[in-house]
């Protein structure tokens, strides 16, 4: 009875807030449902015939979870998923309440599988509630220190959570991230490791903002034979001789061509070769992560291949919109490691770029904006054809970009609409404008561009 009331309330709130266009109605319904029935998540999660899988980590959650959902569909399953940006407990509650019938039952219950992306710090709580079959850890970078605390705090939280997982839980772990790979030391259940083998993708030396440079076990400074990005690479500890484990799923070849890339993944069950409509090594990592989680869930290679081939850009992640005869790509900026990857990806072809950069400092963006000083914006120097800076902390960003050599007085326009108009006007017809916003700015930008491109507000276009 309580459950039905919670489901009803959640759905009513979701419908109302969508009607009022208040942020797509993602967080509030779950909050309401959880308040009315705190047992809603465990109860409904237990009714998922194929159980659940969690995707967590600093970067790559949204795109990877999206890939896993596509793979599940090709495997004949019916995924239940939370929406990105709603990756706390209430997001999971909203997803479950929104997927069941009024009486709390699923249609086709045997085919139902929960694929939930969860916030790094919330993961232990969600895991206790949904009792997942598999948990994927993508990577651990410094991110919003004002919110998560220090990187080591999250690593410690993860180790404690993994220790508490029963042996039936399979982990999918990034072998190239020492902080993530080390979780296999404390795992009771099976582990599927993934990583990048293709050494031609090496990115040189450790970036300025590299975290996890030190062995968690003995404290020695790690050595790298290859660094891909951030602190991801082929690492070994000279102190205790821990080393990057051999991955079960590995990117063995990667080539970029025409707004996409061809990725070959080596798995224990054979090779997977796909063309992704996404670029950047970080997206190859996402594909490997999705494959590893699919393997952990016992899904066959063929479905993995088909699922990855059908993937499209997640909301605000290399999403392409057509506005006034220009292609506008929106790429979310979250943290130094992520933005460094974005910069490296968009500058790969060497042609000058048209850019609009938005910096906000709300809680979801990170109130502390000092992270922009850890980003290697210097890589853009000499490669920018036009630049507009916007967002609540536009001047801070302008100053950072000035330091990076992008002009003594970068163009600043606080109004998001005007900034986008200026940036589009500065981009020649047929050209591409790259819009790089932090999270809350992305919501604004995406809604404005969505209207201009006729694609509508984001929650209408974002297929589950």
């Amino acid at each position: 009875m309580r459950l039905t009331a919670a489901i009803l309330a959640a759905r009513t709130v979701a419908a109302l807030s969508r009607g009022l266009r208040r942020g797509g109605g993602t967080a509030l319904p779950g909050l309401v449902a959880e308040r009315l029935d705190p047992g809603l998540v465990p109860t409904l999660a237990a009714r998922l015939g194929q159980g659940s899988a969690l995707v967590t980590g600093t970067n790559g959650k949204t795109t990877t979870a999206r890939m896993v959902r596509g793979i599940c569909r090709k495997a004949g399953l019916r995924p239940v998923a939370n929406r990105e940006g709603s990756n706390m407990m209430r997001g999971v509650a909203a997803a479950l309440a929104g997927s069941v019938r009024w009486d709390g039952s699923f249609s086709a219950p045997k085919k139902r599988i929960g694929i939930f992306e969860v916030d790094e710090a919330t993961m232990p709580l969600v895991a206790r509630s949904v009792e997942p079959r598999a948990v994927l850890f993508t990577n651990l970078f410094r991110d919003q220190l004002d919110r998560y605390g220090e990187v080591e705090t999250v690593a410690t939280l993860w180790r404690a959570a993994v220790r508490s997982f029963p042996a039936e839980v399979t982990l999918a772990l990034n072998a190239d991230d020492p902080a993530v790979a080390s979780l296999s030391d404390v795992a009771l259940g099976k582990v599927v490791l993934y990583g990048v083998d293709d050494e031609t993708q090496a990115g040189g030396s450790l970036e300025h903002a590299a975290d996890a440079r030190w062995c968690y076990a003995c404290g020695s400074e790690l050595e790298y034979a290859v660094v891909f990005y951030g602190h991801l690479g082929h690492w070994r500890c000279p102190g205790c001789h821990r080393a990057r484990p051999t991955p079960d799923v590995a990117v063995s070849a990667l080539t970029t061509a025409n707004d996409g890339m061809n990725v070959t993944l080596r798995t224990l069950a054979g090779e997977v070769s796909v063309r992704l409509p996404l670029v950047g090594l970080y997206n190859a990592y996402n594909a490997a992560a999705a494959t590893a989680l699919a393997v952990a869930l016992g899904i066959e290679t063929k479905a993995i291949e088909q699922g990855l081939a059908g993937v499209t850009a997640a909301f605000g992640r290399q999403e392409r919109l057509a506005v006034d005869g220009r292609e506008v790509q929106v790429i979310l900026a979250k943290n130094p490691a992520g933005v460094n990857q974005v910069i490296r990806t968009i500058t790969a072809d060497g042609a000058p770029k048209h850019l609009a950069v938005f910096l906000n400092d709300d809680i979801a963006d990170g109130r502390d904006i000092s992270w922009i000083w850890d980003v290697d914006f210097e890589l853009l120097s000499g490669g920018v054809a036009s630049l507009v800076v916007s967002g609540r902390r536009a001047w801070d960003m302008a100053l950072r970009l000035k330091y990076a050599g992008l002009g003594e007085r970068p163009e600043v326009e606080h109004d998001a609409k005007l900034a986008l108009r200026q940036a589009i006007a500065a981009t020649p017809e047929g050209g591409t404008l790259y819009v790089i916003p932090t999270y809350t700015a992305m919501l604004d930008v995406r809604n404005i561009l969505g209207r201009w491109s006729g694609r509508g507000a984001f929650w209408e276009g974002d297929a589950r």
Partner: protein
Amino acid sequence: MKLRLAHLYPKLMNIYGDRGNIMCFERRCRGREIEFELDELSIGDAFDPGAYDLVFIGGAQDAEQRRVVDDLRDVKGEALQEYVERDGVLLAVCGGYQLMGAYYRSADGGELPGVGLLDLWTEHPGPDAKRFIGNVVIEWEGETLVGFENHGGRTHLGPRARPLGSVVTGFGNNGDDGGEGAVCRNVYGTYLHGSLLPKNPRFADHLLALALAGENGDVRLAPLDDMVEEQAHAEALRLATRRSIIRR
């Protein structure tokens, strides 16, 4: 003219965009045709007290701070003391600031000895204590300094240090006495990051002028185009003071 800067533990103490402070020193030297030399000193590297005009140490996570402590005291401590006694200029931010004092007592009660260049001590009241996080504005010599603070430790000054400034909005040293940062001789410590110096160009120039004065007599720094710097300063000031009214 030449500025010789030592950056202590750049790999370990770099948590809050501290690189921006180094970039600021470099930029504001090169813009005036002052030669700029940077040495990055890590664990095990000796500190030569006669080799530098300016020393910087940034913030760190607790784990990294622990790695630095022994080296700071045993390898560099005496030489740093000598440098300070010769009126060498030093800027320490956040975690580095805490290490300049007598000790840092962490949330679990463990004590990290500091290097004692500033007369202060820092205590974390425990894991349940409120962390001081947010935008901060202080008044410094009739001007404002803007930045962001994020610290659990409460810092208290002894008689031989004076606060760098007084808190306009934010928490400062301990959330209690209205002081922020510390100064003793030419040693400056503060919790402000953001990065601190790029958008506080007058403070950056104050330190540069002090650092260059030793060997070059009285130094007059030529003005630079600080339009963007001043706008960033004004924007941070506006947002921090407005928010403190609405949100607290």
